């Protein structure tokens, strides 16, 4: 099909994995039931947390902003259904740490009543800046998992010119099929979203990249593109190899270009957006709907009815599992995300957030294989899609050599897990890299804090010094004055004994005389009107 028309390249390394996607693509997307309670964390994205706009007891409508973004790299959060805010407190976050985060809890009223929506019928009547503003207001973040605010990403700055928009429908991680189902069922919306983003960044063409194990999705989108005769949009079928859905890997496959180590795709004239994000952009602009729901794959051998669900943000994971037939008896592990890059969750009483694409329930009582020493086989380096040296990184991270590990480009690691997958010694390599990354971020925070403290300390010291100096100066002046006075007095005394006239005393006497005269004058003037 289209594949023949376009030359494709390979990225370094990667793995062919068992896809296991079919189990969740048997039935169409199911709309999850409206839950009784919605728990919405105010921080669901990369960047600053939103500032609360509601308080306990407030009535909210579906789509109403409950936390607004004041910073540039931030996104607002909207109520995903109508109801009452019953609590604003810390609840466990869907995060590997299992720590609590600030959430707004809404008790739904069942009416699911929208706020007044402001759809845009003709996209061309709005400027790209206005559209960006609409995307920002709709709270859209990258739905592929990273949750980076989209309004920031589609604004690459005046220096960069975006040549090609790449829509990422690769979905390379096993088990996950939410993008596949979305492309099959929302093909028209997806293409509309692509056109909007393309218009916004004035990209000359748009590539929709889909792995060749999703023929239905490719067909559906091709049909829409053909029907609307969009010549600048091309559907590209790419070979199925993990992690071809990584931004840099996908760019390599499609364009043979490489994103610089500390650069962005926009540096080489590219912009990559996930298919889910494109649909969200369509909804935000054409329908005026903010991002309040997403498609989540509920799958794995540990759940009875694997399926894809359209879920309101803030719905508990436990409710989705329940609506998917519940757990099998041997279910043992709940993972948010896929088997390669996902995080194990301690509980299922956690809300679905914007970046949550999959709930994977595993059933094998996976015996954690004993970690063996590294045998320096080099298998990890041959599969690393970022062309790093996983072995070196592992040794540096485990010996806490955080400077050297950065020299070996730790931060180019995308944590895809290929190295750990092929490691014959079962070393949990990715966890070492995550450890090193968070340690380095922590050191950076400490450094910023100590620099700040140094400035404040120096400032206080300087202030105390000037105060001290000022006081000393004052004291010196006072002393000087006193001494002058003494000298003057002494001199006056000397003079006084000779002439008997003290100039000060004379002045005082003169003043007293004046006052008395004035008093007398006043008395005469005040008595006269009475007569």
């Amino acid at each position, binding site marked *: 099909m289209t594949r023949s028309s376009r030359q494709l390249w390979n990225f370094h390394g990667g793995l062919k994995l068992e896809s296991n996607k079919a189990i969740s693509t048997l039935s169409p997307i199911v709309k999850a039931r409206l839950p009784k309670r919605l728990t919405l964390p105010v921080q669901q994205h990369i960047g600053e947390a939103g500032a609360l706009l509601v308080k306990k007891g407030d009535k909210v409508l579906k789509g109403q902003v409950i936390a607004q973004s004041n910073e540039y790299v931030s996104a607002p959060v909207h109520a995903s259904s109508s109801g009452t805010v019953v609590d604003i407190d810390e609840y466990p976050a869907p995060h590997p740490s299992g720590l609590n985060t600030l959430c707004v809890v809404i008790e739904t009223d069942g009416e699911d009543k929208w706020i007044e929506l402001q759809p845009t019928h003709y996209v061309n009547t709005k400027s790209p800046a206005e559209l960006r503003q609409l995307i920002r207001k709709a709270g859209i973040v990258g739905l592929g998992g990273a949750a980076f605010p989209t309004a920031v990403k589609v604004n690459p700055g005046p220096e960069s010119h975006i040549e090609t928009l790449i829509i990422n429908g690769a979905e390379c991680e096993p088990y996950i099929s939410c993008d596949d189902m979305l492309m099959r069922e929302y093909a028209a919306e997806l293409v509309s979203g692509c056109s909007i983003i393309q218009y916004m960044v004035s990209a000359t063409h748009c590539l929709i990249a889909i792995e060749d194990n999703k023929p239905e999705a490719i067909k559906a989108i091709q049909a829409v593109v053909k029907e609307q005769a969009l010549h600048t949009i091309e559907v590209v079928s790419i070979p199925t190899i993990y992690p071809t859905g990584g931004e840099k890997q996908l760019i390599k496959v499609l364009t043979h270009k490489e994103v610089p180590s500390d650069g962005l795709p926009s540096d080489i004239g590219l912009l990559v957006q996930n298919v889910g994000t494109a649909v969200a952009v369509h909804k935000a602009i054409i329908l005026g709907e903010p991002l309040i729901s997403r498609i989540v794959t509920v799958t794995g051998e540990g759940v009875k009815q694997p399926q894809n669900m359209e879920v309101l943000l803030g719905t508990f994971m436990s409710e989705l599992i329940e609506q998917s037939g519940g757990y099998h008896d041997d279910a043992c592990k709940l993972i948010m995300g896929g088997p390669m890059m996902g995080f194990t969750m301690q509980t299922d009483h956690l809300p679905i957030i914007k970046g949550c694409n999959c709930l994977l329930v595993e059933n094998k009582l996976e015996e954690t294989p004993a970690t063996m020493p590294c045998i320096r086989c080099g298998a990890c380096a041959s599969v690393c899609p970022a062309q790093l040296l996983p072995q070196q990184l592992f040794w540096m991270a*485990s010996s806490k050599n955080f400077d050297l590990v950065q020299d070996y480009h730790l931060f180019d690691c995308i944590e895809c897990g290929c190295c750990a997958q092929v490691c014959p010694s079962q070393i949990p390599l990715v966890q070492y890299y995550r450890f090193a990354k968070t340690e380095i971020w922590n050191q950076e925070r400490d450094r910023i804090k100590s620099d700040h403290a140094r400035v*404040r300390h120096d400032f*206080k010291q300087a202030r105390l010094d000037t105060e001290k100096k000022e006081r000393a100066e004052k004291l010196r002046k006072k002393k000087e004055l006193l001494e002058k006075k003494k000298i003057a007095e002494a001199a006056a005394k000397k003079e006084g004994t000779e002439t008997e006239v003290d100039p000060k005393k004379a002045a005082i006497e003169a003043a007293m005389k004046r006052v008395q005269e004035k008093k007398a004058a006043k008395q005469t003037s005040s008595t006269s009107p009475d007569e």
Partner: protein
Amino acid sequence: MSILTAIIVLAIISVFFGLLLGYTSVKFHVEGDPVVDKIDALLPQTQCGQCTYPGCRPYAEAIASGEANINQCPPGGETTMLALSELLGVEPVALEDEHADEPEKTVVYIDEQVCIGCTLCIQACPVDAILGAAKQMHTIIESECTGCDLCIPPCPVDCIHIIPVKIEPETWRWSLPESTDTTPKA
């Protein structure tokens, strides 16, 4: 004769280089000790005085002059000690006391019900992280507090308490995987 020429030439050269050195030492004079700055940059700037010096910079000066050891900074813990040993090219030294290699981060907070507004803590705070005035309630600006605890001893009513810094999902850190043996087999 030839000896005389050599002496004259050498004398001229030495005078020239002498002047050049003299000029450069004036022209490129470095204010202060750059080593002290480098050491100071590694210290945590809590200004707590636990190293027995009155603040981080005096301690840095003491290290630079060889007067103090590199293991006297409890808030910095092992990380700071190792960084100092690397900077100065000296052998790492075990920390002086039983302080864990990674000290817990803390801040203080003022029990506002008990505070009498004496301003003693404000004077003690090295980074101006306490807000208040005489006979007015005081409060800690948490984001500025370095956890040095210097405000605690002067407080006449013991209303200042130490609390650990809360770990948020954004500041949480992955732990190092427990491994039996990670040494490479040669």
